[in-house]
């Protein structure tokens, strides 16, 4: 598949078959098209070529079963919504038209917040949280959506250790429940710890496969171009498996 904005081709030549329940790391430098690829899979930007299928079904039929955890720049922070309101948005599609979240949806939202360490904070406006907590709110929203595919866009950017642990644990729970997870990151430390597969990207697909076989210095060099020094300092390559 490929995605273009006007005449600018943002991503192309991506061909991958992702097994259900796998955790795929989308890896590439800034501007390599990771976000675009995620948005295309989410159905938020149109494909200019190719197709995306889920379990043999066309993507349109799959709407609602994909949960998307955005980068922080993508939502309207000034909007008057509480953490509970945001998490309850995960139930909108299941509610359908003309119905508002009720007690059951609020309870589900509170439970998801509590599971991610934000117990009793549902009433606060979303700007009254730290950056890492805000990301957890959006992760909670993905949880209540009961998705089959979760898309995480740079969840490890600028967050503290506690937050990383919360994300790791939840990614594991998703995978155990058979939910497929795609996580875009340029944080190479995270890849080996969290993913079963990697897709290396730099405007076009460089490599795709199980992490152990694909997450190699040669492939990384191909994806990151000249920035070799960056990843050769990453200790995971020297470590025994």
């Amino acid at each position: 598949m490929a995605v273009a904005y006007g005449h600018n081709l943002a991503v192309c030549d991506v061909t991958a078959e992702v097994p259900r329940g796998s955790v795929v790391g989308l890896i590439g430098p800034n501007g390599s098209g990771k976000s675009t690829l995620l948005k295309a899979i989410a159905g938020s930007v149109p494909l200019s070529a190719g197709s995306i299928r889920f379990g043999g079904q066309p993507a349109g039929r799959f709407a609602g079963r994909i949960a998307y955890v955005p980068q922080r720049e993508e939502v309207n922070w000034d909007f008057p919504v509480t953490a509970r309101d945001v998490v309850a948005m995960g139930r909108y599609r299941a509610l359908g038209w003309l119905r508002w979240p009720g007690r059951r949806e609020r309870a589900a939202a509170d439970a998801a917040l509590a599971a991610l360490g934000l117990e009793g904070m549902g009433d606060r406006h979303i700007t009254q949280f730290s950056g890492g907590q805000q990301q957890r709110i959006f992760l909670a929203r993905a949880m209540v959506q009961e998705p089959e595919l979760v898309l995480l866009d740079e969840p490890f950017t600028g967050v503290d250790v506690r937050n990383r642990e919360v994300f790791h644990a939840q990614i594991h729970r998703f995978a155990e429940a058979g939910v497929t997870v795609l996580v875009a990151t340029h944080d190479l430390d995270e890849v080996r710890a969290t993913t079963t597969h990697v897709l290396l990207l730099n405007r076009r697909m460089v490599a795709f496969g199980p992490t152990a076989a694909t997450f190699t210095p040669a492939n990384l060099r191909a994806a990151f171009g000249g920035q070799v020094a960056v990843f050769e300092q990453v200790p995971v390559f020297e470590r025994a498996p």
Partner: protein
Amino acid sequence: MSWLTEPLQYGFMQRAMLEVLIIGALCGLVGSFVVLRGLAFIGDALAHAVFPGVVLSYLAGQSILVGAFGFGTLTALGIGLLARSRRVSEDTAIGVIFAAFFALGVVILSRQGGFRRDLGSLLFGNILGVSMTDVIVTAVIAAAVAVIVAALLKEFTLASFDPVMARTLGYPVFALDLLLLLLVAATIVVSLQTVGNILVLALVVTPPATARLLTDRLLRMMGLSMLTAMGAGIAGLYLSYHLGTAAGATIVLTATVLFLLALVFAPNHGLVAGWVHRRRGHHHAHHYHPAGEEAADAASR
């Protein structure tokens, strides 16, 4: 007491009061989304772009609503399509088009006799001249808009707060955005009679902006916004009656005073509260949003 009751002995004041209550509720409701989506400029563009429609129906002896609705719908659709194409600078294009439309209205009107008097009542509204039919038409349109907003509140909220997720869930975000623009257009058109083309934007923006300072909840914001607009409308009418000032402009200034009061004294977002907060040395996570401004920028685009 007679200060309050005296104006009400006149039929035109009674109708004006009714009209301003309906318009206030409508502007407060729809305006909440105008403020939250950063559509103030687009609203202004709409208010100006419908002017030729107002002039044409006025000259044809029709209700100004007829022409205004025609041009309002066209402009809302045009802006919606413009916003979709990424190649044009949206602000510039809207600026060019609405100025041209407005000029077109003035040119058409200037071909007629009695130009200045007519121009005045069309530009600044004539709330004291509304008929009972006008009031009923306004009420029907306001009710229709309110029903649509209530029915789609969940969808409008999601599309405004997180359009990427809305698309991921399969919601028709473009259609929702267009519908919202049409509702804004309808609101502006029916409010034109009250305060005129130039001031109508204040009714749509100022009360919701006031309400946003007072609460962090959407429904409360909408309710407060409607109350603020209705209150400013009634208070402005009384003031204009007793001071002998132009009704529309007095209403707008009353709304502005309420906004300034909220800006200074609002419990959480007000200047005084912020000052007290800093004096007490609260530097914890309260209202912590490093990327907030970028996000607001991105959202308004």
